[in-house]
């Protein structure tokens, strides 16, 4: 029974956070193990470069450690952590944007469907194409899309996770799919 409780504690973020606050390295490693893949899906979906996405996962955990004392017990830990990861990605994208002096948002849908301007879409496989299109979605639409299609959460669960209403989740998901349809128009055929 005690072993069972200890096991449950090892996968309970609240329990791990309390230990991390006291500087427990083992608990921190456990937490990294629990969330690194989830965060990678988010960072990779947002930046679509494997190495950048991995760096951002690491940055997310560093920020988590710095901010661990601001986490309040009872708060949705997953949502809290994902928000940190999303903000780190947005900062990264802003920096990239400033470097390239070309806003991804300002690109027209016709150009967006080609993803990187210096690469021919014909060279991409279907998975890469949609992956690049997902990376171009606005942050909230993207979050809903990932949570639904990768983490397979229901609308109600996503609403809880993102602290928005189910109606908003439904609307964001619809908008995300419409936008993907536009971005992938050439590959899917028909009107954009």
């Amino acid at each position, binding site marked *: 029974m005690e072993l069972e409780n200890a096991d449950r504690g090892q996968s309970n973020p609240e329990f791990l956070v309390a230990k991390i606050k006291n500087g427990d390295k083992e608990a*921190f490693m456990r937490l990294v193990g629990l969330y690194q*893949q989830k965060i990678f899906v988010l960072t990779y979906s947002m930046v679509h470069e494997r190495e950048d996405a991995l760096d951002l996962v690491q940055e997310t955990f560093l920020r988590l450690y710095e901010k661990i004392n601001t986490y309040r017990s009872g708060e949705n830990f997953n949502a809290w952590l994902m928000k940190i990861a999303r903000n780190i990605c947005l900062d990264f994208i802003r920096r990239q944007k400033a470097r390239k002096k070309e806003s991804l948002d300002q690109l027209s849908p016709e150009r967006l469907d080609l993803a990187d301007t210096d690469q021919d879409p014909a060279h991409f496989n279907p*998975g890469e194409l*949609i992956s690049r299109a997902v990376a171009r979605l606005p942050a909230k639409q993207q979050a809903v899309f990932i949570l639904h299609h990768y983490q397979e959460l229901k609308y109600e669960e996503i609403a809880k996770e993102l602290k928005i209403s189910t109606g908003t989740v439904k609307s964001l998901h619809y908008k995300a*799919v419409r936008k993907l349809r536009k971005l992938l128009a050439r590959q899917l055929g028909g009107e954009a």
Partner: protein
Amino acid sequence: MKNCRYYRQDWLAYLLGELDSNRQKMMAEHLARCQRCQKELNEIKDVIGRTEDWRSELGKTMADIDWDRLQVAITDNVFRQKESQSAAGTAAPLKHRHWQPALAGLVAGLLLGMFFSYLLLRPERWPESTSRGNSKVNLPAGFVQRVDLALAQRETLDYLERSQYLLLELLQAKSPDEVSALLTQDRIQKLLTEKKYLNNQLEEVKLAKAKMLCDQIEMLFLELIQLSPEMSETELSSLREIIENRQLLLKINLVKKELQTSEV
């Protein structure tokens, strides 16, 4: 169909089975007779169909990553960075390069401030300083004397004016009864008390003439309070004579003028 807008946003939820049964049924009925919505649904299906590609692509990317190694690397990096930060923080928080100019400015400002404060406030700047009573506050002697003199002048002027009014009233009194009424009032008593207080002030500062005059007035008042309230006509006229002979009113006017012109 006109009401397609009512269904449009729900086609995705319909496809994913996220609607309640009534709404799902209503949507199915509409779909059966609306070609536009059938087209919309097919487009959505196309995109959703592609999500499988997305998932597999993501899965392939993730399969290449050594997650166990990453877990250890992240943990080590975070703790290493944290340790180096806290070591730098405790060892020399002010050694950080961007603090140095600010710190130098702060120290220089403090030193300059201390130097100028000393120059301005050092006690030697005051030619003579004095402390009054038990007070530990040192003030320039000249300043204290000027204040004392000004106070003594004001008090004396006030005393002389009120004495002058009383003497005038005594001189102008038409009957012994009026004089008696003036004498029974406590005005003389108050003036005598005031004079006692004034003595100290007049002694401390050099107002010799004023002091002499005030003494004369005091003498007169002391005589007056010894007079009987029931005064005869003769007594009244002799009182008037005393006041006139001593030329008190004239002297009061002269001293008042002197005090007013030499006011500090």
